[in-house]
């Protein structure tokens, strides 16, 4: 049998090339650490779920549909939910349920939120169907 030409170098080069290609393709996600600061919803963000400590001391849960921007009270168009969570954590878990029972939509003065302890517990973008339903 005749001697074979050595191809070990060629195979090694091919493997290196593939490895390099894989790192080029996947490297940015694997190595990047410059996470962008996450924007947070506020109590007047459309779609935000806001848990608020009411006058009775119980937690009330609202979803913001729109900030109407009408003076002098600058009311927020909201969906009030019937649930009375015991904590902000529970309010967050309740808010994740798309079928959570709610009352008729209402308008609340912006000051109602700013004057009571509240927390944005969740966010879900408002769909056209929801806007129609709540209207």
């Amino acid at each position, binding site marked *: *049998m005749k001697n074979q030409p050595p191809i070990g170098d060629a195979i090694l080069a091919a493997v290196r090339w593939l490895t390099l*290609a894989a790192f080029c393709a*996947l490297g940015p996600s694997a190595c*990047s650490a410059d996470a962008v600061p996450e924007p947070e*919803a506020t109590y007047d963000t459309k779609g935000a779920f806001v848990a608020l400590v009411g006058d009775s001391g119980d937690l009330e849960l609202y979803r913001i549909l729109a900030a109407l921007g009408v003076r002098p009270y600058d009311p927020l168009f909201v969906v009030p939910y019937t649930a009375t969570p015991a904590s902000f954590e529970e309010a967050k878990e309740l808010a994740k349920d798309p079928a959570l029972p709610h009352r008729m939509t209402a308008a609340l003065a912006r000051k109602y939120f700013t004057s009571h302890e509240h927390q944005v517990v969740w966010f*879900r973008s408002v769909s056209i169907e929801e806007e129609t339903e709540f209207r």
Partner: protein
Amino acid sequence: MKRPKAALLLAVVAIFSAPVRADTKGPRLLHVPASSKDTEQGVLTPVPVSLEVPRDLEARRVLLHYHVFGHGEWRTLELHREGTRYAGAIPCLEVSEMTKEIVYYIRVHDAAGAVVAFGGTRASPYRVAIHHSSARPDLASGAAHCPDPAECPPGLPGCPSQEVERIPCQRDGDCEGGLSCGWDHYCGDDPRRKNWLGLDVAGAVGFVSAQGACSVPSQENGGYACYRERDGAVYTGRPIYSNEPLGLGLAPLRVILSFERVLFYRTTVGLRAGYAFAGSGPTLPGAAEFVPYSADLFARYWLKGDPFAEPGLRPFVEVGAGFGEYDVKSSAHVREDPLSPQYSQGGNDLEQTLRVWKRAGDANVSAGAGAMYAFSAGFAAEAQLSLCQAFPYAATLVSGSAGLRVGFR
């Protein structure tokens, strides 16, 4: 009346030569007078053969193939060059005392071993009828016995031609009797199956980047498609880019038909054609449909010396390149940007997990290793593991395949 022995000295005379096919450089037919194709002679006499080969043939060796009635095998002698002629003789001992027929043909080989001209063929050889002296006194030899081979060893000048054990060749067409042209350029009974057909089933695990995978630009231009787990809707929200792990998922299962050719002892090249029969992903509205067909070329280096000469384990390494689409299914955790000025899709929770399909391809390069196990010279099973990089829609795939091989000459 056939020509007597005296005329046999010039039994074959190549006066002219003409191409068999004008458009190729195939072997040329040595033209021989019809009277020289069918001759007679007496017992206990060598059969002299002489021919003139045209100079433009660039002949290096002239081989005489002969067959004696009653003998199983064809034998080969090399004719000696004598000026512009090539001459030799079928030995007296082969002729012997039995009345019979000897047939022969001549092939002219160039320096590379290729047959460049021929006179007669195995199917249509020249014939020499051997007659006993009692029946044909005119053909009787004066000596009436063959000389002792020790007195005149074959191959020496003036002695009978030496038998040729190995016939040079350049291609299979230069060989006869079921023999093929070996890589050493001699005709032989090559046990190797040089062509292999294969049928495999292949699967793969793919790694894709999940960073920004579900943004609208990625879905429009990056080969991604993202779907909400909750309702299966195509995700068109506004995700926040953040550090994401690699997406890992299964790629489609394929059935693959392959053809592989053994080029040299340990080197093969081949072509694969595949069809993805399961595991392809959904296609976004308006996007190009998944193409289930794939094809690639590959070259292999077999790690065992002369692996195709005998059954057994045949490990190999491989590189390849080709075309094919790979739908890789994975998932991505996305956080919605609640402050996005462009409010594109309702019903997206602040955080959710999406089903992500990456349609990678259409080109790919690969490197891998595997082993064939040959149960016999022409039947084998094979398994392989490869690392494949798809581009320009990137994905790195680890693929495995297993299948059967059928080899033929």
